[in-house]
């Protein structure tokens, strides 16, 4: 069984803190959790909410309806009331409200000697009680979290949890909740998983200009500068940022840039530079709805064709798009390795949904395991940065050794010096293009889910639709549909043979995408891998839910 808790109110009311608290404690109890955010683009006010879904089996999607709505403002109450399940419950942070249980968390916190932010302890106590959970793990968790702040704070928090429980005692167990099972006690989000992976994989330099929803990765790396020996520099603009990481990789360290669509647009020229210079520049792209400024705090998968094709001229690139925090850990590393092995830019694509979603995953390894930079250290006086090779990959040295390392954004000869010799120009183009063969040979195949018997209905997805599609397949199977899923974590280049085989022949092929055009279907068609297929798209700024996918597949 599962249960969905929605905490809603204004920006600045600590919704995120309360949500995180619940998620962490539930996970520590061995419950499966899945939480997502829905935020407006403002610092205070507006209407935000956090969904915390909890279950006794692995869940990988949010749900439209809430079983428990915790409304911190009247607007939240009125707007979200309609989305509460029939046998659900509404908890209102105030003195009274129609069809809702009113408990004034903030006032209670203050009355009992706490501060306004401690309201979430009161709320936590009440929620735990309503779900019929013991409040001990909650108190234990707060003890640890506030240990450093002193005994007084710890005590107050514990008292507030108890007070919350008391105030909700009438409703003890009112909402039947799932029992703890064997879920891993750690919780990840896409942001942290991405940043952590970059840090342990040896990224030493990040330059970025803040832009939602990529800023979290930048912030995480800035916060952990000392721990991992990183320089995190805020650039004056995105153009500076991408050109900085070109310089940083040239000088010899793995480097990334974080941005969103508008920032990538400004980086297009720099991406082409990395292609020409053959530098392992890695761009972390957090997608949000466009065009232009669009919906800054919402989610989308609308930048696939853009990421695939932006930048002038022809040069190899790879695109990765993880579908879960665990895949973030793997694919950020893979992105860095691919960039270094083939000396070419790589784009790692996320979106607001994946950046912010949290769920339990196996324990992570935080010890540094720097990737192989694939540099040569014995380059001598006759070194040629762009030696023509069969693989297209030339030995990469870094400056300060015996060899001069010469990079040119003009077409160049093997030494790296500008040339207008058109035979050399063509040879250089061909050299760079040959790298694509190697990249295809090493491309990750798509991951199949429940496709053992070659199901008749195949959901194709990429990036963050992984999790809701997965749950949708589970539900479809329960409903008797012979459905399965193929998820692409690497979306370029594609190993066509592997993909063709994985797609096979089906009754129905449905491309599930967070954009209007079915952009990945365009890519597959361009690669000759599919013909006309069904599109299941959404582009209103919100993520898919499994329920929605199921409903539309069953149509």
């Amino acid at each position, binding site marked *: 069984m599962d249960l969905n808790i929605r905490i809603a109110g204004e920006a600045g009311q600590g919704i995120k803190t309360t949500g995180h608290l619940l998620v962490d404690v539930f996970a520590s109890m061995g419950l499966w959790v899945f939480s997502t955010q829905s935020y407006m683009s403002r610092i205070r006010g507006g209407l935000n909410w956090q969904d915390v879904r909890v279950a006794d089996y692995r869940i990988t999607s949010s749900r439209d309806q809430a079983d428990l709505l915790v409304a911190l403002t009247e607007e939240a109450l009125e707007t979200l009331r309609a989305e509460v399940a029939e046998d659900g419950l509404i908890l209102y942070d105030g003195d009274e409200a129609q069809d809702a249980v009113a408990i004034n968390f903030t006032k209670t916190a203050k009355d009992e000697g706490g501060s306004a932010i401690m309201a979430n302890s009161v709320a936590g106590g009440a929620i735990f009680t309503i779900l019929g959970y013991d409040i001990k793990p909650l108190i234990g968790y707060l003890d640890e979290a506030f240990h450093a702040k002193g005994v007084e704070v710890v005590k107050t928090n514990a008292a507030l949890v108890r007070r919350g429980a008391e105030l909700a005692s009438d409703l003890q167990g009112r909402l039947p909740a799932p029992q703890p099972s064997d879920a891993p006690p750690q919780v990840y989000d896409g942001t942290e998983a991405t940043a952590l992976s970059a840090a342990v994989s040896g990224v030493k330099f990040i*330059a970025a200009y803040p832009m939602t929803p990529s800023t979290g990765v930048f912030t995480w790396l800035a916060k952990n500068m000392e721990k991992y*020996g990183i320089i995190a520099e805020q650039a004056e603009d995105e153009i500076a940022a991408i050109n*900085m990481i*070109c310089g940083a990789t040239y*000088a010899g360290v793995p480097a990334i840039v974080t941005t969103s669509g508008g920032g990538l647009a400004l980086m297009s020229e720099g991406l082409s530079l990395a292609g020409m210079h053959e530098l392992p520049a890695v761009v972390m792209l957090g997608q949000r709805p466009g065009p232009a400024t669009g919906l800054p705090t919402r989610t989308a998968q609308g930048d696939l064709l853009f990421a695939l094709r932006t930048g002038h001229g022809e040069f190899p690139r790879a695109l990765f798009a993880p579908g879960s925090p665990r895949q973030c850990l793997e694919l950020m590393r893979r992105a860095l390795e691919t960039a270094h092995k083939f000396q070419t830019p790589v784009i790692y694509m996320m979106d607001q949904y994946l950046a912010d979603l949290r769920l339990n995953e196996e324990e992570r390894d935080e010890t540094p395991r720097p990737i192989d930079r694939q540099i040569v250290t014995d380059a001598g006086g006759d070194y040629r940065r762009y030696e023509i090779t069969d693989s297209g990959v030339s030995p990469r040295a870094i400056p300060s050794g015996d060899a001069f390392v010469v990079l040119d954004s003009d077409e160049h000869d093997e030494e790296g010096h500008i040339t207008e010799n058109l*035979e050399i120009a063509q040879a250089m183009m061909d050299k760079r293009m040959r790298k694509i063969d190697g990249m295809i040979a090493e491309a990750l195949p798509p991951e199949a889910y429940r496709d053992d018997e070659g199901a008749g209905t195949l959901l194709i997805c990429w990036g963050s639709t992984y999790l809701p599609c997965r749950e949708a397949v589970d539900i479809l199977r329960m409903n008797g549909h012979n459905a399965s899923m193929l998820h692409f974590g690497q979306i370029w280049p594609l190993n066509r043979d592997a993909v063709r085989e994985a797609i096979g022949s089906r009754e129905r092929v449905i491309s599930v995408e967070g954009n209007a055009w079915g952009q990945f279907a365009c890519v597959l068609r361009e690669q000759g891998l599919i013909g006309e297929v069904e599109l299941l798209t959404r582009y209103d700024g919100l993520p898919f839910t499994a329920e929605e996918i199921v409903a539309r597949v069953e149509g």
Partner: protein
Amino acid sequence: MRALHSESPAWCPGCGNFSILPTLDEAIEEVGLDRRRLVLVSGIGQAAKLPHYTRANVFNGLHGRALPPATAIKLVNHELEVVVTSGDGDMYGEGGNHFIHAIRRNIGVKCFVHNNQVYGLTKGQASPTSDPGMETPIQTHGVMAQPFNPLAVAIVEGASFVARSCAVTRDHLKEMMVAALKHDGGFTLLDILQPCPSFNKRNTAKWYKERVKPIADDHDPTDMHAALDLAMTWGDQIPIGILYRNERPPFESLWPALEKGPLVEQYSG
């Protein structure tokens, strides 16, 4: 027919770049710089081709974008001497935003701007430093905007070293290059007035020669007001020399991560 290789500088006869290139080489020798530690960073333009004609590590990037990679290279390996050679369009036009922010950071790169007051490579359009009234194929009514004053901006923004010289006064230029290379501080700007005989028919070698005048010995380069006065002087007399210096610590000295040595040397993998 397709084999058109040419290793000689792609500059016009009489171009001021032909003075700047050997002067740079002499200055490098004079300060005894190990060229393996030298990285020349440039954008795109006639000036920006210079790195191809000498011996050094080279990062020849995009038009207008020399400073960001230069900044990063210095941060990743602060034991390298990072010298930017760039044109006035490259640095003050397309690259203007990086210019003002590199100065704010006070990153320890040496920035040599070949200021010919015109876009050479694209055939003679106005640059940010073109004199008002100059007619070009685009500015058919003459330049209407006021010239960008790189020295004044660098001074009010707190650059660590601000100097001007000229391609036609090679001894002075060498002196300035040596001083810039020896300057052990933050952002170092050397604006080099450079004749472009092909496209700038106003500010010719003769025009510059008649006007440039070394700054008096008693000028105190730590005096911002005096420096600004010199920076604002343009016309019958154009002061050349070191206008301004300050002791702000360079950006790369402020990062805790770099206390252990160059970042690149901390990499194990």
